[in-house]
């Protein structure tokens, strides 16, 4: 039941991300619901389920964006595994600690994704990069902090 509920949340969130969330973008930057969901499923589910969900989330993100290969399908399971490893040593029950880790993950993820994007050709100027890079991380973390306590109830 918990898994079905989360699956529905993923599908609705994905559809919201590509439609409604554009209204709430700040300087053209919207929060990344995908990485938030990947983070949450890594915390609240067991390893196999979390991995399955993270692959699905990555797959959906890559399907809806334009990229020549599935960067996120590959990256999200790695995030999931590393987060589960961190969870063994650090308690992620505290919203702010979890938020801090999410912030770090978004920043690292953006650097990696951009490194791959830039290696394909398109050049993103430094000011644009920093605008998106910082705003996305902060905005997503704020959204995560407001959502995290509700997801902890599922657990």
């Amino acid at each position, binding site marked *: 039941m918990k898994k079905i509920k989360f699956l529905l949340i993923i*599908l609705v969130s*994905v*559809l*919201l*991300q*590509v*439609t*409604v969330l*554009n*209204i709430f*973008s700040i*300087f*053209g*930057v*919207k929060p*990344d*619901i*995908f990485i938030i969901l990947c983070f949450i499923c890594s915390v609240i589910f067991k390893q196999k389920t979390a991995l399955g969900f993270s*692959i699905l989330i990555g*797959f*959906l*993100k*890559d*399907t*809806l*964006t*334009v*990229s*020549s*290969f*599935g*960067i996120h*399908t*590959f990256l999200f*399971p790695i995030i999931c595994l590393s987060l589960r*490893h961190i969870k063994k040593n650090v308690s992620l029950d505290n919203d702010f600690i979890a938020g801090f880790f999410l912030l770090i993950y978004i920043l690292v993820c*953006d650097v990696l*994704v*951009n490194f791959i*994007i830039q290696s394909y*050709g*398109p*050049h*993103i*100027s430094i000011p*644009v990069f920093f*605008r*998106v890079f910082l705003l*996305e991380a902060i905005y997503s973390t704020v959204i995560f902090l407001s959502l995290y306590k509700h997801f902890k109830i599922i657990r």
Partner: protein
Amino acid sequence: MFKFNKKFIIPFTISFFLLFVLSFSIPRTRPFVLEILKSPLIIFNFLKREITALVFFHQNYYENEKLSKQSDVLKSKLNELVEFKSENERLNKLLSLKQNSLYKVTAARVIGRDPSNWASTVIIDKGSNSGFKKGMVVIHYYGLVGRVSEVGITTSKIMLVNDSNMGVSSIVQKNRQEGLVCGSLGGSLIMKYLPKESDIAVSDVVITSGITGIFPKGLVIGTVNSVGYEFSGLSKYAVIKPAVDLNALEEVLVINQ
């Protein structure tokens, strides 16, 4: 510390390989998944429109009042223009001028946007069954929108002019100075490689040059917002405000021919 157990090597390698295959198969599976997501996307897009109407109610109310006043002024101007048009047609016939052929366009509705902040694309509700092909030019009533980047059966993806992958050879309408308009992932575009001595100014109109043959000549891209010198000091750049509000696109026109 993280210890890697030897018994996990084979399952780990297989999983890694499968993930690799899945990652590289995404461009092929993408059109089919988009077909499945098309109907929910249309519903959510409707929801988005309603929420937008609610969120921007106050702004829309005043804009409506302003536009109603403008509409009255424009109606009177339109009457004048109808007269000019008929006069122009008569004179053209007299001069035996060949009328420029219009583009054949197909209208499509925007049903979704790129989920990531690193690309600027939209999903539209028409695809190969409407004759769309990769590379087709997409416009709006006000100007250039972008190009078709992927085509499914009933959906397509449009790469907008403000995407960082986009480069449009363009000219300044007033003085025919050439440059390259590039996307900056935001609400404005950058026109690069303008000669240092070019007299480009704020509110100049920038149009497609048609040099590369990808975009037809004369499509309005936007107006100049500000002008500056490149870091090297060898050329100028201009910040362009797109003629089309790319964040509020609801319908687009795809040039078929």
